Structures are given as structure tokens and as C-alpha cells.
């Protein structure tokens, strides 16, 4: 009985959080003289009304899920890897770099693509390793080290696009010269979606799920995240584990960046990371660091991003609304979590 009512209370608070987030967003909409129901309806239509649109949601979902998957590892190790944006960017840079090398050579396309994805993963991991070294050997908080590295990564992208990798004749925000079709991850005809990238995402999250749930590595990482000193005394090489978590997250971030290059933009563009790193942090927080739940939640977030495009088209509204909804959802879930534990504590007394 106790358990059941516990769940009931939990459910009550969680649905309360969602309702509050909806209420908040609705108020924001009303404040700007917009019809709330219409707005929500259009977001839904924009993401789920046709297979084509849903495939666009999936295109956005893949890198978001990969970023989230990586972040679950660093979160487990108690690290706030805010530098993931830069890690995605470096992944894209390395991926682009390798693809450029294969241009005009005799490398078969499948090999070029695989190699470039691998290179991207390495690039992401290297950038994460930098944040990791700063954290574990330099004592620099990963939030600040990561933020700084994000800026450096952005600058690096711009420099490459306007400098060494500029398109013949011009240098512009549109990025580097697009790669020929052979170097794209094969797409489903008529859609921008690639079965391969879906496969990569699903395998990726499955690996993370297994890693965190079933292995000694995952358990040790959890111990490091919860209490580094105790973990060390229990015999876990904490430095190595923290570095590993950075590296794994970097691999996944780099993978997300590679997907952005080989499956979405087919070139390096200035904001290649598309904010997926920050959004992934929100998803990871919302799912309370449980790998499997990040699948539907990241899908929902991707749908909000894609569906909100309808807002300017149909209702002349700014699509920043999607961000408002995403942010308020996480905020209210956090607040309600706190409210719930306060509430149950009071009940106990």
C-alpha cells in the first residue's frame, strides 16, 4: 500500500509539472496575443502529420539522442559536460577533414564515410579529453573549461570555413563546399532520412544502456560519480574512470557531429552542433539519467524543434516557443521533484 500511494504521489507531482509547463507556455502565448491551442496543434501537425515530416523529426532525433547518450555517461560519473557542444563541433571538423582528404582519391565511398565517422568520433573524444585533462589534472571545473573550449571550437570552425577550407572564390556562412552525393550517408529515396543513422543511434543508446546497467564499468562509474573519494578508497582508479567517461561522451558527441556532416548538412557549417549538446543536457536531466527513457524524450524534443517551424509559417509566431516549452518542462519537473520530496518528508513527520 505504502509503495502504491508513493507512486500515486509521484505521478501526481510529475503530471503537475507537465501541466505547469503547459500552463506557463500558454500564458506566454496569450501574452503575445497568440492562440495557444492553434500553436500546439501546429507544432504537432508540423512534426507528425506526414511520414515526410516525421522523417525530418527523426533526422533531428539521431544527433540529439547520440549527444544525450554520451551525456548519460558523464552524468553518471558526476560530471557536467557542458563542453559537449564543442565536442560535437570537433567531431564534425574531423569528419569533414577526413572526407576532404578522400576527395579525388580512390577510396571507395563506403570506406571514406566509415573512416570519416570514425575520425569524427576521435575528434570529439580528443576535445573531450582536453576538458577531461583540465578537470582531472588541472582542477579546472568541467563547466568552465568546457564553456571556454566551446568558444574555441566555434572559432575554429569559422576559421576553417573562411580560411583554409573556404569554397573556391567565396567564404561565407554557408560553410565549406558540399561533398558529392557519393559521400553522403545513403538516404531513403525522397527523404532526408538515412536508415544508417537511425541504426547508429539505436545501437549507440543500446550500448550506453548496457554499459551503465549491466557492467562493472558502469557501476564503478556510478560510484565515482556519487563519491569520488570513497570510490578511490574502494580501489577504483577514479582519474582513469573520469577520463574514460569524458572520452566515451566525446566519442558519442563526435559521432553526432559526424552524422551532422555525412547525413544532414554534407559539409561543415558554422553552427554545425545545432545546439544539440545543450538540448541533450536538458533531455538527460528530464529522464533522470535513465538511458532507455532518453529515446522517447529526445524524440519529443526533436519533434518540438521541427514542429515549431510551422509557427512562423502559419501563425507568424517566433519558433523560440519550442525552447520555452522544453525549458519550462525541465524546470517544472525539477521544481516538482523538490516539492515532492518536501511533501513526503512532511508526511513522514
Amino acid at each position, binding site marked *: 500500500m505504502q509503495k502504491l500511494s508513493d507512486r500515486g504521489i509521484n505521478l501526481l507531482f510529475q503530471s503537475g509539472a507537465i501541466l505547469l509547463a503547459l500552463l506557463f507556455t500558454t500564458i506566454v502565448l496569450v501574452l503575445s496575443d497568440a492562440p495557444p491551442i492553434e500553436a500546439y496543434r501546429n507544432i504537432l501537425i508540423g512534426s507528425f502529420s506526414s511520414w515526410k515530416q516525421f522523417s525530418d523529426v527523426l533526422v533531428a532525433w539521431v544527433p540529439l539522442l547520440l549527444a544525450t547518450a554520451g551525456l548519460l555517461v558523464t552524468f553518471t560519473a558526476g560530471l557536467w559536460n557542458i563542453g559537449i557542444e564543442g565536442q560535437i563541433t570537433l567531431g564534425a571538423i574531423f569528419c569533414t577533414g577526413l572526407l576532404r582528404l578522400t576527395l579525388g582519391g580512390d577510396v571507395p565511398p563506403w570506406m571514406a564515410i566509415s573512416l570519416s565517422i570514425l575520425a569524427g568520433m576521435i575528434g570529439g573524444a580528443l576535445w573531450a579529453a582536453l576538458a577531461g585533462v583540465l578537470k582531472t589534472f588541472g582542477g579546472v571545473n568541467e563547466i*568552465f573549461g568546457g564553456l571556454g573550449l566551446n568558444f574555441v571550437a*566555434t572559432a575554429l570552425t569559422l576559421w576553417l570555413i*573562411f580560411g583554409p577550407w573556404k569554397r573556391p572564390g567565396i567564404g561565407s556562412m554557408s560553410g565549406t563546399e558540399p561533398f558529392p552525393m557519393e559521400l553522403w550517408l545513403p538516404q531513403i529515396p525522397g527523404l532526408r532520412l538515412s536508415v544508417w543513422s537511425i541504426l547508429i543511434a539505436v545501437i549507440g543508446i543500446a550500448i550506453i544502456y548496457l554499459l551503465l546497467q549491466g557492467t562493472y564499468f558502469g557501476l564503478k562509474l556510478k560510484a565515482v560519480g556519487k563519491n569520488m573519494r570513497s570510490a578511490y578508497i574502494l580501489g577504483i582508479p577514479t582519474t582513469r574512470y573520469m577520463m574514460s567517461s569524458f572520452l566515451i561522451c566525446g566519442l558519442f558527441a563526435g559521432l553526432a557531429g559526424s552524422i551532422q556532416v555525412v547525413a544532414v548538412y554534407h559539409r561543415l557549417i558554422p553552427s554545425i552542433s545545432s545546439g544539440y549538446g545543450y538540448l541533450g543536457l536538458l533531455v538527460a*536531466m528530464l529522464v533522470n539519467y535513465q538511458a532507455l527513457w532518453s529515446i522517447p524524450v529526445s524524440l519529443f524534443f526533436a519533434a518540438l524543434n521541427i514542429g515549431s517551424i510551422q509557427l512562423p509559417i502559419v501563425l507568424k509566431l517566433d519558433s523560440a516557443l519550442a525552447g520555452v516549452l522544453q525549458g519550462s518542462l525541465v*524546470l517544472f519537473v525539477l521544481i516538482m521533484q523538490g516539492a515532492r520530496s518536501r511533501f513526503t518528508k512532511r508526511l513522514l513527520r
Partner: protein
Amino acid sequence: MTGISILIGLAGIITAAAPIVFATIGETITERAGVINLSVNGTIILTAMVGFATAVTTGSTLLGFLAGMLVGGLVSLIIAFSSITLKQSQVAVGFVLALLCRDLAYFLGNPFMGLSGPRLSNFHIPLLKDIPLLGVLFFRQDVMTYLSILLIFAAWIWIFRTRPGLMLQGIGERPAAAFVRGANVNLMRYVYTVIGGALVGLAGPVYSLSVKAGWKGTISGLDGIGWIALAITIFGGWNPLRAAFGAYLFALLQWAGLVLQPSLPNIPSQVLQVAPFPLMILALLLVNIGNTEWIERTLAGLPEDVRRLIAKILRSLRASPPASLGVPFEQD
């Protein structure tokens, strides 16, 4: 460049850094009380919009600044409530707010895009403005810049020279000891979080009504400044003077980047613009590395004199955060 134009350029740095000064001092005060407000980036964008919108609607810059402080205070109140009362992670809540406030600003700020609004004009302080060098540098600025300079010293005096300021240090350092000495720790944390948040909230209107006058939505050139301000707070070692130095150094590097552009034709401008970040990381590295275990171990293996010398250097660089930063206080 002539001497006078360098001087004027430097004066411009003091203006350009003013909003960052407000934000870092605000954050320093909040963190001194043991609370991290990670929402700075979103708060600055939101308050820049709100401040501008208010000023445009009412025609009063003063109201614009007050509106910014109000919104900044409200945002930090959410952080205070969820972290102090509800015991949720400050970092998580702050980060969410950083994103939420930014999008909220873009969504709600649409009607005010590109409007021509009031702007704070410079106010030359009579007599003082004619002091050679200093006059140009310090006394031909606008009111908010003067306030930003005053705030640096006021914050420093408050934290290090007044009784409540010492208590503030205590609250962030060892809340239990502060409690025994009569402090209502959680109330004080609320107060300082909101005061700090209001100061951060002032940074927004200082941009939109003075330094980067106007509101242009996503192209206002504000996204990112809050993260920079946060990094400067850490760089400043929770000391207003050092934090202000960081803010000025940052603005100086930005300025140097564009002044040097013609003389360094082979260095892309992005590289110069990004220079402050590696520098900041380096600075963070220097202040923190003395606290790491491997340095202690390595030092132990070195000959006596070398060891003492390095240890001394590292100690002089070290800046330790308030011991209870981010740790909730529970009175049993």
C-alpha cells in the same frame, strides 16, 4: 595611433566592460553566499529585452534598468527557491533557466525588434573630466559606467570590511558556524542570490540601453556574454577587484583584437577574438592546479628548494571557492 586615441580606446573598454562588471560582481556576491547562479547568459538576454521594451514603452531608461533588475531578481529567486527550499541541483536549475530565459526573450521580444529607443547619454563629471589622462579615462562616461566602477569598490568594502559582509563570507564558507552566530543562513542565501541576480539583471539593460543600444533579437550580439561573465567570476577568485580586473582584461583583449587587425594581416580576426578563452582556461588552470593531488605527489619527489619554490608560487596563485559553494544547508 596617437596617445589620446589609445586613451579614448581604453575609456571605451571601461564602458564596454561595465555590463560584465555588473554581472560578475552580482555573481560573485551570490557565490560568496554559497549559491551558483548559472542562468547568467539567459538572464542577461532576457533583461536586455525587458529593459529595452520597458524603456521604449515608457520612454524612461530608469524604468528600463529597474525592470531589468526586477526580472533578474525574479529569475534568481527561482534558483534560490528550487535550490535552497527544494534542494534541487543549482547547476541543473540554473542551466535550464539559461536556455529558457534566452528563448523567452526571443519570443516575447519580437514586437520590439529594431525599434529606436532611448539611450543613456554620457555625463561628463565637471572638473574631474579635465584631469589629465584620468579625466578622459574615467570621468566622461555614462551613469551606469560610473555605477559599475562604484559597485566594484562597494562590493569589495561590503564583503571584506563590514560586519554583514564578513557574515556573508561565513555563510558561504561554513553555514553551520554562521548559523550558530545568529545568521538565518537560508534567508541570507535568498537575499544575496536575489541581490546578485538583480545585479546580473542590470547587465542586460546596460547593454540594450547603453553599450549595445537597441534590441535585435537573435542578432543582438548578446548570446554568449553570460557564459563569459561566469568564467570571469571564477577567474576573479570571488574577489570583486579581481573579477573587475578580469572583465577589463577581457574587454581589452577584444579591443586589441580589432586594433591589431591591420597590423596582423595573416591572423584571422576570429583567432584574436577567441584569445580570451584559452587565456581564461590557462588562468583557471593556474589558480586550480595547486589544489590537485598529482601536483602534491610530483612535488614530493622534487628536491627541497625546487619544491618549496614551486609550492610557494602555486600557493600565491591559488584561489579557493567558498567551501560550501553549491552545498545546501540543513539545520539538522
